[in-house]
């Protein structure tokens, strides 16, 4: 049963876009991925509005004093099994904001992160490649 669920899960991923105080650059690239040009629906990936329908969280930006607890709260609301993908260098490790006064701690110390897609911002092909690598790793 768990194997079947994982098989279906990797073929039908509801993506929730969790903006954790980003500069909006990664968000624009994520929106590009969802346009007809890149057509991620052929892998079964769809954008969902509610975290309750999500299987993957795309987190962008740095966790600061206001958003750090919110992102943890959102992660807890996601029905499991679910994965977290850190998009952009900020979400992967803080980028140039890591010494900033309101930077709390890196994202992967707040919630478990399954996939890192670094770059500032990653282009749509890089995001798709990251997701496909994650799908392959999940299928085993």
């Amino acid at each position, binding site marked *: 049963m768990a194997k079947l669920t994982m098989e279906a899960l990797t*073929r*039908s991923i509801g993506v929730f876009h969790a903006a954790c105080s980003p500069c909006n650059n990664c968000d624009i690239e994520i929106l590009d991925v969802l346009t*007809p040009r890149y057509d991620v*629906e*052929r892998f079964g990936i769809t954008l969902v*509005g509610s975290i*309750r*329908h999500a299987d993957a969280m795309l987190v962008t930006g740095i966790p600061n004093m206001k958003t750090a607890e919110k992102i943890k709260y959102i992660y807890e609301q996601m*029905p499991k099994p679910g994965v977290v993908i850190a998009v952009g260098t900020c979400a992967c490790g803080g980028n140039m904001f890591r010494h900033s006064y309101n930077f709390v701690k890196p994202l992967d110390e707040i919630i478990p992160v399954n996939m890192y897609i670094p770059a500032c911002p990653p282009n749509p092909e890089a995001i798709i490649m990251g997701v496909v690598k994650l799908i392959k790793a999940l299928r085993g």
Partner: protein
Amino acid sequence: MIDFLFFPGLLFSSVCGMLASFIDRKLTARIQWRKGPPLLQPLYDLVKLFGKETIIPAQASKALFLLLPLISVSAVALFAILNGVIVKSSVAPFSGDLFVAIYLMIVPAVCLILAAGISGNPLAIVGASREMKLVLSYELPFILALLVAVIKSHGEIVITGIMSYQAYTAPFLFSLSGALAFLAAIICLVAKLGLVPFDAAEAEQEIIAGVLVEYSGFSLAMFKLSKMMMLFVYPMFLIKLFWHNACGSVIGDVMVFALKYFVVLLIIVLIRNTNPRLRIDQSVKFFWTYVFGISLLAVIFAFIGL
């Protein structure tokens, strides 16, 4: 019981519904000039949701929250039995089964409204109020449009009776009043299915997922399944009431029916892909003026005998 679970009921209509949902998504993808999902995509979506955790909000009434999706699915399955297989009815037809069918068509919408109401989420409640307004606006023109079929078959209120009347004479679609009523009924059907011009209740960009915002896992899968089944059984119902002609052999009937169903589905998909979402007040106005006008005209024409 076998009728309910397998052949015209749950299993058959969900398989056909998944196929219809696939066709809908694929056509949408092709219209947007992209490749689109694989054939088994609706099945993957459902199996995935079966394996996921179901979260019940703290404010919600637990039993009702879990029961409503099941009621929604069983209402659609019951509707599928009543509607019968493609050519004949599987339960013995009884006087007034048309009215039972009309009532069963409202049940999924009522389930959605109640589910949103008890989930305790403010966005869901906004969605529920919109869904309620939508039900109030499309129900009247829809019933008037169905009335045309009753008038034209000289007061027949049994679905199979209407069908056999058309088989003796001609399908109602090929008369003026029948065509107008069919048009009005298809527009109401788009709203009943919650598709794009009338999807203010689930408007993803404004109120997240509207009525379904708190649902996850198995319960969400049941709501999705009932949507898919509706996409198959509701157009089937309309085809039987307005566009039925028997051609004798069973295989021929099934082929003709599939072709008709595809045409209706194509119309629905095209409406959905070429129109922006209407605000809820615009939808209500649209249904109470234009669609109501069309179906009233159809009823008057039907009385005159056009």
